[in-house]
């Protein structure tokens, strides 16, 4: 199924003109915070690119990431990406199943050796030899290792693949681990989020297709274009934070006026993602705009970092019982010290007489 034709010609046959490509490229350039002038070069790059083979591996995942990207309820600009790539293996989307599906995967790996992309969705269980998630009788770990071996790059989509996400949350019975833990020697890009922004996924792929290189990544391998700033930095309610106007409960007068949700546990300040600027569901809204604080879903261990509704400035440990015991211990120690002092004082006057 390898495509020798250039992407541009192939798309045109499918009714997607170079103008559409230019529109797509300028949109993507804007998302990637690249200068508008880059759009032209990006469109040309896309047109000349070969159709990119992509193998999508789904492990311990809830298909939320696929849902977010394919956005089945109404086709969007992001989905154009699926016309640029040949999705050779995707449990949910592909027609083939069982052995046929596996055969398709191996064939694509052979034909596009060291040129295909591996997209991983979901974390990989490692406990008890990885038996907790298997495909066609083989553990996710084996499938991952085998598939990744000749890949050009690996894209971990969603917080589960990037950082372990919910499967890895305490107590982590399956010993789930993020992809970066298992894949070494290959460039890995993390696109966290639960689910991740479709624009982030599409933007990363487009950047790879049009420029042939991976976008600039940060310390956690996340594309800086989408994960360079915190929600708090781009939040439209920031002016209320500065003025100290905070909603006290989810439906009080402050909340209705769109005041800052810091007091209701918003984790915007410590969460790196582009929800506040790109927004969701076709730039309609994002969690904070709909009145709920950001829960930091694109950060590692977001599930175990103290309650979602506990404000950032409050401690995560429940210390009240602890402080009760500490108080008793303190007074006891004080009484002991005082008794000791009295006793030492008495001993001095005793020897004095």
């Amino acid at each position: 199924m390898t495509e020798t034709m250039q992407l541009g010609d192939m798309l045109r046959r499918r009714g997607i003109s170079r103008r559409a490509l230019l529109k797509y490229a300028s949109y993507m350039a804007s998302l990637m915070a690249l200068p508008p002038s880059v759009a032209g070069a990006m469109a040309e790059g896309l047109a000349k690119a070969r159709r990119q083979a992509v193998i999508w591996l789904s492990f311990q995942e809830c298909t939320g990431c696929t849902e977010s990207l394919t956005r089945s309820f109404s086709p969007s600009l992001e989905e154009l990406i699926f016309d640029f790539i040949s999705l050779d293996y995707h449990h949910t989307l592909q027609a083939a199943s069982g052995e046929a599906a596996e055969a398709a995967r191996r064939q694509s790996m052979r034909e596009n050796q060291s040129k295909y992309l591996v997209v991983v969705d979901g974390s990989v269980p490692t406990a008890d030899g990885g038996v907790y998630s298997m495909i066609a009788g083989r553990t996710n770990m084996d499938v991952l290792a085998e598939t990744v071996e000749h890949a050009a790059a690996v894209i971990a989509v969603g917080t589960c693949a990037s950082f372990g996400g919910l499967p890895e949350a305490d107590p982590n019975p399956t010993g789930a681990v993020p992809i970066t833990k298992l894949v070494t020697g290959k460039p890995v890009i993390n696109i966290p989020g639960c689910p991740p922004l479709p624009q982030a996924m599409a933007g990363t792929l487009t950047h790879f297709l049009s420029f042939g290189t991976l976008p600039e990544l940060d310390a956690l391998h996340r594309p800086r274009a989408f994960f360079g700033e915190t929600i708090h930095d781009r939040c439209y309610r920031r002016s209320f934070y500065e003025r100290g106007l905070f909603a006290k409960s989810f439906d009080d007068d402050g909340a209705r006026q769109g005041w800052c949700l810091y007091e209701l546990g918003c984790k915007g300040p410590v969460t790196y993602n582009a929800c506040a600027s790109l927004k969701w569901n076709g730039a309609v809204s994002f969690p904070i705009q709909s009145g709920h604080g950001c829960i930091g879903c694109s950060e590692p261990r977001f599930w175990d970092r103290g309650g979602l509704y506990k404000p950032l400035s409050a401690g995560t440990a429940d210390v009240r019982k602890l402080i009760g015991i500490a108080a008793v211990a303190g007074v006891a120690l004080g009484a002991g010290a005082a008794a000791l002092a009295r006793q030492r004082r008495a001993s001095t006057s005793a020897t004095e007489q």
Partner: protein
Amino acid sequence: MELLDFARGPALAFGLVVFVVGSLWRLAGVLLLPRMRDLSPARDGAPPAPLAALRTVLRRMWPRKEFAQATLFPTINSYVFHLGLALVVFGLAPHILFIRSLTGLTWPGLPSNLVYGVGVITLASLFAALARRLGHPVLRLLSHSGDYVSWLLTTLPVVTGLLATSHLGARYETLLAIHILSISALLVWFPFGKLMHAVLFVFSRGATGMRFSHRGVNV
């Protein structure tokens, strides 16, 4: 375990526990020492002891006119950073939330930008206090390492707090973590250094107030 999780979790909990144990240990250790009552007949017309104590605690908030001139700078500068610290700690919304998470008490906060300004003034005042402690011969003679540790652990939270709010120097969660760690350090040191005067001053002034009102003198 990310730095922020460590700071917000175990570090803060440890700080709070040591703070409570240490403070009550020191307070109980002092207040349970033998009481040496003054059994001499009181000056007639002397007010009851607790009232006298309270009056002295309030009266001593400002120096007598004989000393106001000579102690003008330390008095005013101390009030600047004491009120500054109070406004910052009890005025900023995130701080109020922290206190609410511990005590359940809550009250309306001040605009964050205003508190930020107060924080800068407080910081300047704290540095002025340090300059005086290093420069003035009397203070240089009196001061020992505990005073400088207390100064440092009082100033660090202000510095890190200002850095955190202005997102300077590192990512926000690192700055916030460092700020919370500096709070834990302050809480751990609090009972063992001179910061305990924040609690002891009431008893100390009260004791002297009682002693002298018994004699008919309003100190």
